[in-house]
Structure formats: C-alpha cells, structure tokens
C-alpha cells in the first residue's frame, strides 16, 4: 500500500487589486513599468522613512479571513523578520508573527466527487521584497540587478494545517482559494508574480521537507509529485528523509536542497514599533456586510433559482467571471439551455485551449448564438462551430472580437439547410448505401447511426441530426 501523503501549504497572494503598496503611496501597477520607477523613500528603506499601514489592505485581509471562515483577531500587530538580502532594502521584512489578522478557518475542497474540509491555520499580511534580475541564468550571470518596484507590494499569506492528502487536492485547494480571492475582488491571479507557494510535504511517519519557490498554479502539482516520489524512493532504498528546506526548480522540474534543519535561518522576529498595534475587531461587522456572495452560496442559489444540476452549478460558480457570464446569458434565454452551453460547451472549449473566460467573446454574443440555435437557424453543431471560430480568432488589438457570430454563420455557411434539401440528401445517401439498409432491416440499429452520419457529412453538418433521423426512418419505412 502507498504511504499516506501529508501536505500543508503556505500560499502568498499579492493583493494586486489595491492601488497603493502596503506601507507607502507608490502605485501597485508596475508590471509594465521601467525598473525602480515605482519607488519612494519608504519602499526603498531610506534612512528615516517610516511605514504607514494601508488601511484598505487590512480591510481586504479581514475580508479574506471572513471568506475563509476564520476568527478575526481582536487586535493585530506587525513584526520584523530580520535577514540580509539585496532585495530587502531595510534588512528586515515587515510581516506578522504573533497576532495574525485571522486564524482558525476552513474551506471545503471537492476531490473526485467527495468534499474534504481543509483547515486554515492563519492568514496574515506582509510586504513583498524587491525583485532580483539576473542577466541570463543565475549560474552564468556576472552580477545581479535589483528592481524595487515590487518592494512593499501587499501580500497575504494563507497557511493551511497539514490536511491535504495529494498533489491534486493541493492544486484544487489553490484553485479554490484563488477563486474565493477573485470573488472578493482583492486579487487578480492572472498577473505575473500574483501567487507563490511553499509546501510542507511528508510521508506519514517521516520527516517533512519544505519546498519553496513554487510560483505557478501548475508548478504546485508538479513540484509535489516530484517531492513525493523522491521521498518514496528514499524510503524504498532505506534512506532516511531528513527535515530540510528545498528549492523547486520549475525549469528542470525538480527540488534541490537549500538548507538543512541545522542551518535553519534565524529571523529574530520582534515587534515593529513603527506601526502601532491595530484594533480590528470592530471592523469586521461592516466588512461582513460588504462581503459578496461566495462560491458555495452561489452554487446553492443557482440550483434553486435556475433549476440547474449540481454539477453545472459547481462548474458555473467556481470562477466569479464564469458565474457572472452565466447569469447574464441566463437572464436572456432559458437558464437550463444557458447552463449546458456555458458549462459544457464554452467552458469545455476554453479548457481545451487552456484559456480563461476573459479570453472568450462577451455573453451577449453567447445569447445571440443560442437564440439562433433555438429558433432553428443553426444546428447545435453549427453553434459549436461558431463558438470555436470566435475563440480561435481571438480578439482584435482594440479588445473586440474579430468577428460577430452572424458573420461566422454567414461566412461559414452554417445556416441550417431547408428540410427539402435534407430530404434530398437522405434519399441520395440511401441510394448510395444499400448494404447499410440491409443491415438496418436485419435489426442492426447502429446502421441507422451510420446513415445519419453520412447525411451530416453530405450537408456539411448543417442538417439537424434529429430531423435526419426522422426522415431516414420515414424513407426506410416507405421503401
């Protein structure tokens, strides 16, 4: 039997929806900017400059705490984490230690059909350091450049209990967390550097390794799979796994030793006296009111309000943008139809292309496509073709889709063929497939499917398969 895997995560998310940094007025919108242009005495740590807390960041973190079902602290305090590194302009990072802003939460994660509850140990705030830029690779670069645009970016760190049992579950957890943060509109997970993960991994009974520097959603599962098989191999060979910190190398997809327990860094945490302790217990009531509907609640509402299946409701509510997209479509057209088309077809086509709902055409276009389908102008195959075409064409430089659905229908000649054309096609197919007719008559039902397929081929998909089916039966009975 395989060893039980025990995983705990520390997830750092930039509160990149804030306009200014955590302790100064510098803008957070520096992703396109020249290096060191979004800085000031505070985030450069110039002598004498003092941090001032961004109240909005505290509010956002409390909202995250509430959304993760945490207890919000009576009062919260910042600490200094002391270490020397060129990207850390003060020689310490302002973070939280004792008195985190939120603690003791839970979220549920759906893994292979059953729900598991993952406990959240704490949620705290901290500042991001600057960014080191190497010329070429780390190994060959003769020097390193430092960009302090990122210095002081507001981060939250979400720490789980060691409740996760597989890499897949860890990935699901991170997706759920991302979705919740995006529901709260405090986080945009698509921006570079938005999310970084450290993972604690062990096999039941063994020592744990901390894997640092996982910086992509897909990297989480890969890094964990690598680390688990490394530990399993060691165990199989009878080598003891030691407690250590390991570094995940995304390019080579492996983890390497960073430091052992004996070399563990000593951060000399102590209270940051430049920031007074914040009494936040009074804030949460107002913020609770402001809390938007979250995924689990929305899922239940969708089931009740639109009568859609649990599975559709789950897919449609996972991401806030998909949920909003669906609700728009459902407000214009049959919600059940809308659910099928958004959850199954549109989401399916997007997943296939590894794309986001933001890369899709607008919901008004989806409404148009479904209207054309419902009124019989295009078939379901035609509708899918329109969706695919619009997705593959992408958007023009001004952000608008390159084509309108009606253009696609016209240009690709997708309008459903008239019934007499279908009838003619059926007759031709029957003439050309005498053997299949014999099969059908001898009781082989799949022969009919074959014939339907041939008609669809002949009409290049523009016939309605149900209609073809009826017509063929009719014709077969007549002859």
């Amino acid at each position: 039997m395989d060893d039980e895997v025990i995983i705990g995560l520390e997830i750092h998310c930039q509160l990149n929806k804030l306009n200014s940094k955590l302790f100064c007025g510098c803008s957070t919108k520096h992703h396109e900017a020249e290096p060191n242009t979004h800085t000031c005495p505070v985030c450069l740590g110039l002598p004498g400059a003092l941090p001032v807390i961004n109240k909005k960041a505290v509010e956002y973190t409390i909202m995250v705490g509430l959304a993760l079902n945490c207890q919000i602290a009576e009062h919260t305090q910042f600490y200094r984490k002391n270490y020397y590194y060129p990207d850390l302009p003060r020689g310490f990072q302002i973070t939280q230690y004792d008195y985190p802003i939120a603690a003791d939460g839970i979220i549920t994660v759906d893994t292979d059909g059953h729900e598991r509850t993952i406990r959240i140990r704490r949620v705290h705030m901290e500042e991001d350091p600057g960014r080191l830029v190497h010329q070429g690779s780390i190994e060959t670069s003769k020097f390193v450049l430092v960009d302090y645009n990122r210095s002081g970016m507001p981060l939250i760190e979400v720490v789980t209990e060691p409740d996760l049992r597989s890499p897949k579950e860890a990935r699901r957890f991170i997706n759920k967390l991302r979705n919740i943060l995006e529901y709260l509109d405090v986080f945009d997970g698509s921006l570079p550097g938005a999310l970084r993960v450290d993972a604690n991994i062990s096999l039941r009974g063994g020592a744990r390794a901390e894997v640092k520097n996982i910086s992509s959603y897909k990297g989480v599962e890969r890094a964990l799979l690598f680390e688990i098989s490394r530990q399993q191999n060691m165990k199989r060979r009878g080598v003891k796994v030691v407690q250590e910190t390991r570094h995940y190398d995304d390019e080579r997809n492996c983890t390497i030793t960073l430091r052992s327990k004996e070399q563990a860094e000593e951060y000399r945490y102590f209270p940051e006296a430049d920031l007074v302790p914040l009494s936040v217990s009074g804030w949460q009531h107002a913020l609770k009111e402001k809390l938007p509907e979250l995924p689990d609640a929305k899922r239940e509402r969708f089931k009740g309000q639109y009568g859609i299946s649990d599975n559709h409701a789950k897919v449609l509510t996972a991401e806030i943008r998909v949920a909003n997209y669906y609700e728009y479509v459902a407000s214009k057209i049959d919600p059940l139809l809308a659910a099928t088309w958004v959850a199954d077809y549109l989401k399916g086509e997007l997943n296939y292309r590894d794309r986001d709902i933001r890369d899709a055409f607008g919901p008004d276009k989806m409404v148009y496509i479904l209207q054309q389908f419902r009124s019989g102008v295009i078939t379901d195959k035609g509708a899918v073709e329109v969706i695919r075409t619009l997705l593959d064409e992408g958007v023009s430089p001004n952000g608008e889709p390159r084509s309108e659905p009606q253009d696609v229908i016209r240009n690709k000649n997708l309008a459903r063929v008239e019934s007499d054309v279908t009838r003619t096609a059926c007759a031709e197919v029957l003439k050309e497939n005498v053997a299949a007719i014999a099969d059908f008559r001898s009781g082989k039902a799949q022969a009919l499917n074959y014939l339907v397929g041939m008609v669809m081929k002949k009409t290049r998909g523009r016939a309605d398969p149900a209609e073809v089916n009826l017509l063929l039966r009719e014709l077969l009975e007549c002859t």
Partner: protein
Amino acid sequence: MPAASSYAESAQRTFERIEKSKLNAFITLNKQQALQTARDVDDGKVTGRLAGMTVAVKDCITTKGLQTTCASKILTGYVPPFDAEVVARLRHEGAVITGKTNMDEFAMGTSTESSYYGPTRNPWDLTRVPGGSSGGSAAAVAGLESRMALGTDTGGSVRCPAAFCGVVGIKPTYGLVSRYGVVEYANSLEQVGPIARNVPDAALLLDVIAGGDPKDSTSVAEADKVTYTDHLVDDVKGLTIGVPEEFFGEGLDKRVEKAVWDGIMTLNKLGADYRKVSLPHTKYSLSAYYIIAMCEASSNLARFDGLRYGLRTGKDENWHTTFSRIRAEGFGAEVKRRIMLGTYALSEGYYGQYYLKALQVRTLIKNDFERAFKDVDVMAAPTMPAPAFRLGEKTDDPLSMYLADVNTLPVNLAGIPSISVPCGFAGRLPIGMQLMGKFFDEPLLIRTAYTFECNTDFQKLPEGF
C-alpha cells in the same frame, strides 16, 4: 560686538564664529542656503515663527539636499532626497538652518566621542565632553553657533548634553513629535527635542516641531491643540513636586546633589510643595533600556549595506562578502558592539530571556511613574549624576559610560516628557536639573522650568563667549 542690523548680517557672523570655532560642533554646514534664507527674511519673502532665527540640526535628522551622516563613516556622502517632518516644519517657519551637528555615531553614546568626525568639545571646558549623543547641538547653542538646535533623545541624548553645556533641553512625550526622517537607532524610545539657551526659545521650537504627522503612525495629534509658549508663566504656586529617591542614589556627585536640592527648595520658596516619591523599579531600567535599544538598533541598522547609498569601497564581490566588508569598514566600535549584543539578545532561545523580559520591566517602570504621578504634578531630579567628564575618560569603559545615563533613560522607557534646565555649577561646569511630567504634560513642565529660570541666574554664557 554691536547688534546685527539684519538677519543676513547676523547669520554671516554666526558662520564666522563657527568657522573659527574649536568646538567641532558641526559635521556639515549649510552656509549658502542659510544666508539666502536670512536675506529672504530680510526682504520679507520668508516669514514665520522662526523667521531669521538660526537653528542647528542633529545629523541623524534627514535634510533634503544636505549631507546626513549620523556621524558615521558608513553614511559619508549620503545626501537625502527628502526632509524630515521636523525639518520641513523649521523651513516652513522661516528658520535659518545653519548645518548638521556632530553626535555620537548613530546616537549611541553619552559623550559625542564616538563620531567618525572627531569629538565635539564642551564650550565650558575644551578638555571635557559636551555630553551626548546630541553633543554638537548643545555645544553649538551654548557656544553661540546657533540660537537653537534640534537633538534626538533616545535615553537622554538631548537632556545630557543640555545639562553638560548649561542649556535647556526637552525630551517630549513619545509621539508628540514626528519621527519621520529621523534615522532610527531605537525607534520605540526616541523623540526629537529642542535645545535652546532659555525656556522660551525651547518652548517656541517645541511649538514648531510638535504635532501629529500622518507619515509617522506613532505620532499623535495631542500637540495640535496646545501652544507651548502660552505656558511661559512665572507661577508654580500649589504645585506638588515629587523627588524620586532612586534618582539620588549611589555615585551621585555631591555638588550635583546640592545644586538640585537647592533648585527644589527654590521652587518650594516660590510656592510649590515637594515630597519624596519612590520609583522602585528604577534599578532595572539601565539593563532594560540597553537590551531594548540594542535589539532595535541591530534591526534598524541592517539597512546600511552600501548597496543603495552610503559607503561603497573596494571591489564588488558576492553579496555576503561585500556587505559584510562595507559594514566592517563603515561602523565604529560602539555601533558594532550594540548591533552584536542586540542580535544576540533577539536570537532564538534568548528572546524571552532578554527582550521580552526587558519589555516587562519597561511596563513596571511605566507603572512606577503612573503611580507616583497620582500624588505629584512634576518630578525633579539630577539630569546627570555628575558634571561633564574629560574627553577620553570613559571611552575604554563602555559600562561606566552607560551608567551615566541612569537618570535619563527611565523617562524614555516610560515615554513621558522631561526637560533639563541649568541649576548651578560645579566649579565652572554647569549642572542640570531634570523635571519630569505626566504624558503630554509639556505645558506644566514648561511653566515650572520657566518659573525656575525667571527666579534664578544660571543662564550664563561660557567664559570667553
């Protein structure tokens, strides 16, 4: 010398005096800009409560465009791109900023001898220290090299040199004055404070610098509703003065003891009552202070790595080698001692034993004051246990140097305000009396100090000045 006919002429004479001076009170002069400001005041282009008055600024207070070194080699050549809030307020009120004054390196000291730029001398006796760490500021004021000065007080660094140089120094309540732009040494303890030749000037300067500042979260708006110069009232009738017996302990110079008691009796004659009080935890304040200050210093001084500003010598090697070498070259012995001790005290396994314990002691000391202040309005004690010592006398004995702060640092641990006023002489060396008040009770301290000053004659100039 006849009185100057203009602010420009007066400023010009001040610079002539500074340039001939033996005191070494300044590290960097601001001559050109100062003279321009003085001319602008003469022309009516610049006005304000300090218009045309010369003010010197301690070199750990950031000045835009003017070198700020903290008397350390590691910051030599550093020209800040911004003004400290207190400096901005000086400029706003038309002050003529003469320059940046000498100090103990990073404000760590009691004598201004640990400056990379050489020691400052006491105007009353050039063989003696001016006190520290704001020694340059106090010497400049006592030696007529500026009318007033800003110092910083972490454990007595304004009051000690004020006492040694025979001038007035105020350590405001923690939070009264913005620390924005004050290079941090021990940030939970320090405040910017005025140094002047008399109480009215000190009160005026406090009026200018005190007040809430959104850039410093630890500052409070308390001062915004007070005008300190309104409290220059010659009246102490009905006040009760507490005399904390622990501040008159072992090692107190007899001449100092007598001068301070004489001072208390003077106030008594003017209508104030007095009684002895006890602050029983005072004996722990020295250890608690040095642990807290060193721990904070070890972190506050971590930013000086030569990467972004300041000293950058030799060839760039890998990060650890380079920043270690720059810090080894750039910091003096006392700074290194405090960084190392602070680092040790914050380390895992020692944190609870040292830092947390020190914080607990700090609370006890604060409680002592609060309890004692239920019965008295102000307290009076010697500022320093002895008059100014000789240059070099204590440089090889850090502990005896630390012990000199024994009466000033409980005030910083408690966060309360205090003022040192001249109260006598030991030979030709001035003696200071420290008046301590309740939180934000600077008005009463100023009234008491002013009354004392009005009815005594210790505001003298050093011989030859």
